[in-house]
């Protein structure tokens, strides 16, 4: 008797719960905080270990809500969330991850996550960064060179130079069949055949002849680059050392992360971005924030995402501080870029088009596998 009554009450409670999820997306931070305090905690998977610093700032700002942060690479987050939800486990609230093309296909499309845009900052973020996924910041995979060895600026001004005999065996990249960002980089290049063809003409003076089995100048570039003995590495640390070491004679160039330049002094590197490159020097790719489906702490999850976009000051305050590094770019327009690095508008990198990269990524991966 009592049991059936309870079941009925529970069923009745579920209907407003659906409507409540809609409401949560509109709530102010104060309202969310009031609910989050009842929930008591929020669990986040993060691609960056900097979540430990967010934890401190968050728990100071919102006492009573315990942040449980777990470092996991994007691939592991995806594997874990898929496995958990298939088992009916809903344990994580917030996902902070890269690999946006895979996230789109494996998590967003099947409804395993939802995109929540905090109303507080919604009109300070460009539309393309709010849908289909909410982008927190942009990181880079761009051409880096050694500024100690080349004091007059980048030795490369056109991507096609990398396919010439001068640079044979002297261009480096973390293996794109091991790391998603590099695969995204090559896919994005393949998605710009016209620009790549124009750059080819600017470099060599003739029109490009694309092999019959390839789909444009971008794919031809990928083939020529691999055939010019592109050196593949297993991690970015090796790449930075190889490209950046200060006293190196005749150092190579490589596709790396702009923000790694911040370690120059400490590590004895001379990494610098090659910005003046035709048609582009690489890609900007997003780190996204999303709420997991049936998150156990829906209000705290939203509160955390709101919090991670920082306060209204120019550096985003303590909440954004862990992510405010030169060479990474906040999507929130009120947060100023670092004065010592190239501003976002001036960086000659393509911002990846997540949906088309997702569509073409597997094909480019297949092409690369045949070239290795």
């Amino acid at each position, binding site marked *: 008797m009592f049991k059936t009554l309870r079941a009925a009450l529970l069923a009745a409670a579920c209907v407003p719960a659906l409507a409540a999820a809609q409401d949560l997306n509109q709530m102010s931070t104060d309202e969310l905080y009031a609910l989050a305090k009842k929930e008591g905690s929020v*669990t986040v998977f993060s691609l*960056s*270990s*900097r979540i*430990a610093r967010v934890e401190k700032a968050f728990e100071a700002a919102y006492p009573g809500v315990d942040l*449980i*942060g*777990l*470092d*996991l*690479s994007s*691939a*592991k987050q*995806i*594997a*874990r969330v898929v*496995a*958990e939800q*298939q*088992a*009916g*486990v809903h*344990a994580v609230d917030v996902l902070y991850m890269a*690999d946006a093309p*895979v996230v789109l*296909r*494996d998590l967003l499309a099947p409804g395993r996550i939802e995109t929540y845009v905090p109303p507080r900052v919604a009109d300070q973020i460009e539309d393309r960064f709010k849908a289909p996924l909410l982008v927190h910041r942009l990181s880079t995979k761009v051409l880096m060179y050694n500024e100690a060895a080349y004091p007059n600026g980048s030795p490369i001004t056109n991507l096609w130079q990398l396919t010439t005999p001068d640079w044979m*065996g*002297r261009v480096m990249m973390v*293996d794109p*069949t*091991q*790391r*998603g960002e590099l*695969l995204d980089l090559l896919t994005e290049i393949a998605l710009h055949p016209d620009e790549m063809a124009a750059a080819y003409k600017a470099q060599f003076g003739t029109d490009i002849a694309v092999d019959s089995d390839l789909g444009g100048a971008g794919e031809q570039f990928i083939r020529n680059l691999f055939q010019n003995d592109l*050196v*593949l*590495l*297993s*991690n970015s*640390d*090796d790449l930075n*050392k*190889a*490209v*950046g*070491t200060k*006293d*190196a004679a005749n*150092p*190579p160039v490589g596709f790396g992360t702009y923000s*790694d330049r911040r370690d120059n002094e*400490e*590590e*004895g590197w001379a990494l610098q971005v090659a910005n003046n490159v035709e048609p582009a020097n690489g890609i900007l790719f997003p780190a996204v924030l999303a709420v997991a489906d049936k998150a156990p702490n829906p209000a705290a999850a939203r509160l955390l995402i709101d919090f991670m976009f920082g306060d209204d000051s120019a550096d985003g305050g303590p909440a954004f501080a862990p992510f405010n590094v030169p060479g990474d770019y906040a999507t929130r327009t009120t947060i100023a870029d670092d004065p010592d690095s190239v501003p976002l508008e001036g960086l000659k990198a393509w911002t990846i088009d997540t949906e088309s990269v997702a569509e073409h990524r597997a094909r480019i*991966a*297949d092409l690369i*596998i*045949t070239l*290795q």
Partner: protein
Amino acid sequence: MSTLDIAAPPRRKLLDARRLAPLLMILIVGVLVLAPLLRILLATLTPAGLDAWSAILASSMSPNLWWRPLMNTLILGLGVSAGCLLLGGFTAWLVVMTDVPGRRILGVMHTLPFMIPSFAAALAWGTLFRNSRMGGSSGFFEANGFVIPDWLAWGIVPVLIVLIAHYYSLAYTIIAAALSSVGADLVEAAQMTGARRPRIFFGIVLPVVTPALVSAASLTLAGAVANFAAPALLGLPVRMQTLSTRLFGMIEIGQAERGFVLALLLIAVSGVFLFLSDRLVSGRRAFVTVTGKGGRTRRFPLGMWRWPLFAAGFGLAILTTVVPVVVLVASSLAPQTGALFSNWTLHFWLGEGGGQIAQGNAGIFRNPVLIGALFNTLKLGVVVALISMVLGLALAHTITRNKGTVLANVLSQLAFLPLLIPSIAFAAAYIALFGAPLGPLPSLYGTFTLLVIAAAAHNLPYAVQAGRSVLGQISTDLEESARLTGAGPLRRMWAIVFPLAIRGLLAGAILVFVKMVRDLSLVVLLFSATSPVLSMVAYRYAAEGFMQFANAITVLILVICLAASLIAQALQARIQKWKE
């Protein structure tokens, strides 16, 4: 009364431990190993999975996705396993069977390389041999005027060397455990009848330790084909891919089905070799040496070869243990990762935060998380080592006592597989299997229990192989006589098998403990508590680019493993008092 007497035997036969045990074992292995494997297999039978099969086996990508990685994997597997048998066998013989000087210290040193993560040995190789292909600062030899060709700096040769240097100590541990049970009576009998030394070696010692040799060969083969760090660090610059770097990469770039197909193929290939090696053992007569009589170990006098062989054994230990450890320790002291031996500071261990070094981070011993992590790591390592050794001993017992039957073959094959299942797939399967409530059992998601179960299953191969190589030598006479005097299976296990097998069991437990303390990938996917384990703290530092902190923690892990193996040796000496 009389009817009861007649009815009793069949029922007792049905419940007889001899029958029940194998069934129980099949059930355990089925749940722990077969279920996750089936899940992976099913994932490759979806439309996307079938595409992956054809992409790998029959497309223009097959040469680069399957055939060449397969060839590299086979060369590595067979080469490493042969090299490990030679080096591990030699060192084990030297330490256990001869009067070489400094046996104790040699014995400890040769167990160390397996405790050092294989990437540390790969990094050490790079520090010495890297050449201009990698740009940056050149390696030690090039800086000193030698020209290092690509084949010596990168690719299959250095990977082979590094993996042998890493895994030979695994072979050493297993072979040494078996050698120590070659009784003095056998050797003395041979000597008295005038057998020469080679004859004793090939006629007595070698046949007796063959099960251990096969175990060691199988484990090192499986370890080498599944190793990711060394081929990734040293192979990629010349575009050498193995099946494990391929399958890791496929999962990492979101093509999980292809990764699973490669994993299944890797399992199939290794399965063939393991099956053959099993045939090798079961096709010949077994030799039991632990008979309860004698048991002292007889040492060969080396005569004039004492010091040269000491130099060989010690030199090997220096190269495989001291060099990587020095590189690790130095890199936890050097502010710049490029200049290992200059401007040393203890900051990364003890320093207060807030300064210019390491972006103001404090040393690891000032990190409040560390003590908790240390405790968690020990707890996890000990619990997993104990549970997997109990499971492993039971399994090994069932396998050796049913030797030659289909059941034993199937069990021994299955017990091996976890070594070859990529941990990301393994963990995902475990979450899927135990995440939901299973009948009366509650959901194990996020619990320490699930982590322990998965880790025990993942480490089962080490436990089973360690158990097998020792149990194979224990005479069934002892158990039979105990059974005749009315001892139950548990009593027999505890009073006879356990003390006699203790050395092999402890060796296995140490291997499991070390693997558990050192490994990250499985833990990181199943752990959900805030308090991490040491390897996760190291990963956190490494992800931030603070290699010094990460290396400092690796050194700490090394110290823990070393302490554990010393404790195990002391324990063994106490239990097997009759030995010396």
